[in-house]
């Protein structure tokens, strides 16, 4: 295939990044046009006008759900009667397996994320922002901590920012752990030091969020998109994409490819271009079998769908979701049943236990899958798994964790049915070596371990 010619294309998310891979701090960032979006908002725009530009740009949430960012902001109460304080929360929990773009942004371009949070803060007239990062992001945490300190020093944060009369603080919060903290309403509980179960909605967070005050929660990459949109306008952003959804985004490729990594490309770039051009194709002796397009909770698509554009609409038509846009390839030598088992192990372990279908159902699905992978499966187990997919479908659980877990499972049963059947008929994992080196039973080295108890 001939790659799309990207010479001269704008890369607003990575423009300020240093070629040496080190984090771009304030001087690098300002030299690359950083904080011009904030200046533009503070000097030239009313808060509601900032939200309008973001709405017009069509920007959709980059954490995976794809909700309109401008629409979310526009439900925040404005004006003298609005409850105070108001908050902006940046979701940098990034614990969903197969998601690795926020680490890239936070550790290479932390000021871009901060500028986006500040502009959001101005647009909704918030008083403070929290950057919520997972504990294992030690390096990104250090980068953001330094960037916040620099922003205070140069007057981009604090009282009366750049003489505008707008005051705003940003605090860094390090999570004490668990995947469920990435669910926006659970994140607010975590920030309040409450047990991080998701909250019932309504009320929506923009009405009653952190400490029951109006709160807007967006993903790291969503905030990163905001400064250039405000600086250059909605039409500019819309024209960046190859398909109609507008903008660029951070895509990533991992698995048995030649050059795994992250890259900023126009929204709508095809999976083929990502894998074959940017990731250098599959490693020798490995064939592409399927793709997990955007995190553990997105349905697999097969190699037959490789020309699908990576945008929200196209991925949905292909029976999956864009999710985070960081794809993990499944090669022809890796057991798809084993990979699905690994995914279910994750979701079952990370269920917060609040609602019954998720707490119980994921454990049962996991047990069924483990039996199949380890050669103890029965033909009727496939029907039982199908029943679990129905029982943990949308609107049957308190939050989206279990329905998210069912998406790869449903796709695996549909796309790799022959593999499931072979496991059951042969009573072993057909991908396992005939005899494991240590004499372990068939399939054993391929199965994820039981979760060890936390100390």
């Amino acid at each position, binding site marked *: 295939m001939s790659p799309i010619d990207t010479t001269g294309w704008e890369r607003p998310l990575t423009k300020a990044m240093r070629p040496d891979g080190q984090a771009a701090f304030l001087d690098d960032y300002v030299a690359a046009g950083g904080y011009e979006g904030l200046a533009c908002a503070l000097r030239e725009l009313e808060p509601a006008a900032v939200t309008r530009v973001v709405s017009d740009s069509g920007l959709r949430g980059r954490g995976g759900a794809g909700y309109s960012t401008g629409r979310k902001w526009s439900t925040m109460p404005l004006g003298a009667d609005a409850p105070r304080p108001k908050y902006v929360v940046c979701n940098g929990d990034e614990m969903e397996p197969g*998601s690795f773009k926020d680490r890239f942004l936070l550790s290479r371009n932390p000021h871009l994320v901060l500028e986006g949070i500040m502009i959001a803060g101005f647009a909704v007239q918030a008083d403070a922002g929290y950057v919520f990062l997972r504990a294992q*992001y030690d390096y990104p945490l250090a980068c953001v901590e330094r960037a916040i300190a620099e922003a205070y020093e140069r007057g981009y944060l604090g009282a009366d920012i750049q003489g505008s009369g707008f005051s705003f603080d940003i605090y860094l*919060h390090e999570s*004490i752990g668990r995947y469920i903290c990435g669910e926006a309403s659970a994140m607010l509980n975590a920030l309040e*030091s409450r047990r991080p179960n998701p909250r019932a909605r309504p009320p929506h967070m923009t009405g009653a969020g952190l400490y029951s005050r109006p709160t807007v929660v967006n993903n790291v990459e969503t905030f990163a998109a905001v400064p250039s949109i405000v600086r250059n306008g909605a039409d500019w952003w819309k024209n960046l994409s190859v398909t109609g959804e507008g903008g660029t985004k951070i895509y990533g490729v991992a698995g048995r490819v030649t050059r795994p990594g992250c890259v900023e490309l126009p929204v709508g770039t095809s999976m083929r271009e990502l894998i074959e051009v940017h990731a250098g194709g599959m490693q020798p002796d490995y064939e592409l079998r399927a793709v997990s397009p955007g995190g553990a909770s997105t349905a697999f698509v097969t190699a037959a769908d490789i020309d699908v554009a990576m945008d929200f609409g196209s991925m949905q038509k292909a029976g999956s979701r864009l999710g985070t846009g960081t794809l993990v390839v499944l090669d022809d030598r890796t057991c798809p049943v084993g990979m699905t088992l690994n995914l279910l192990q994750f979701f079952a*372990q990370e269920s917060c236990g609040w609602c019954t279908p998720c707490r119980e159902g994921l454990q049962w699905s996991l047990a069924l899958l483990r039996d199949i992978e380890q050669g103890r499966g029965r033909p009727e187990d496939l029907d039982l798994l199908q029943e679990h997919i129905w029982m943990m479908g949308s609107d049957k659980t308190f939050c989206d964790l279990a329905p998210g877990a069912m998406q790869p499972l449903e796709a695996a049963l549909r796309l790799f049915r022959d593999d499931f059947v072979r496991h059951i008929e042969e009573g072993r994992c057909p991908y396992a070596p005939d005899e494991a080196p240590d004499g372990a039973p068939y399939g054993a080295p*391929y199965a994820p371990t039981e979760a*060890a108890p*936390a100390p």
Partner: protein
Amino acid sequence: MSLSADELRELDAVLPHYPDRRAAAATAMRVVQRRRRWLSDEALADLGAYLGMSVEELDGLATFANMLFRRPVGRHIVLVCDSFACWSLGYAELREAIQTQLGVGLGETTADGRFTFLPIVCLGACDRGPAMMVDADLHGPVAPSEVGAILEAYA
């Protein structure tokens, strides 16, 4: 034992980030764990007195979290990423190599108190899989033969 002067100084510095003391509980537990490595019953009692919370409330939060330790841990924490990306890139062999090197399995601490070995959900380093962390350092991709040299650096 009560909160040390250093701990109090650090706690007083983070309190203004939160509207009230109890909202700072998660961060406060991290602050104390960073200094004491794990949260003993005494540590929770000290923090409870400081935050105006019961030990039970703090324990409810601590036992839900995967990065707060309620049992003693080693001087260094070794995490092996078990995401499906790392799994497809040699997680099993990496885990095996760490286990052999340390002589303990997941969830255990070496007899000399040097390392605690724990599983971790996706480290967000899928492009560097199979990945592991030792304390604050991310390593990846790690071949099983490199595990010895990596761990050697942590005394």
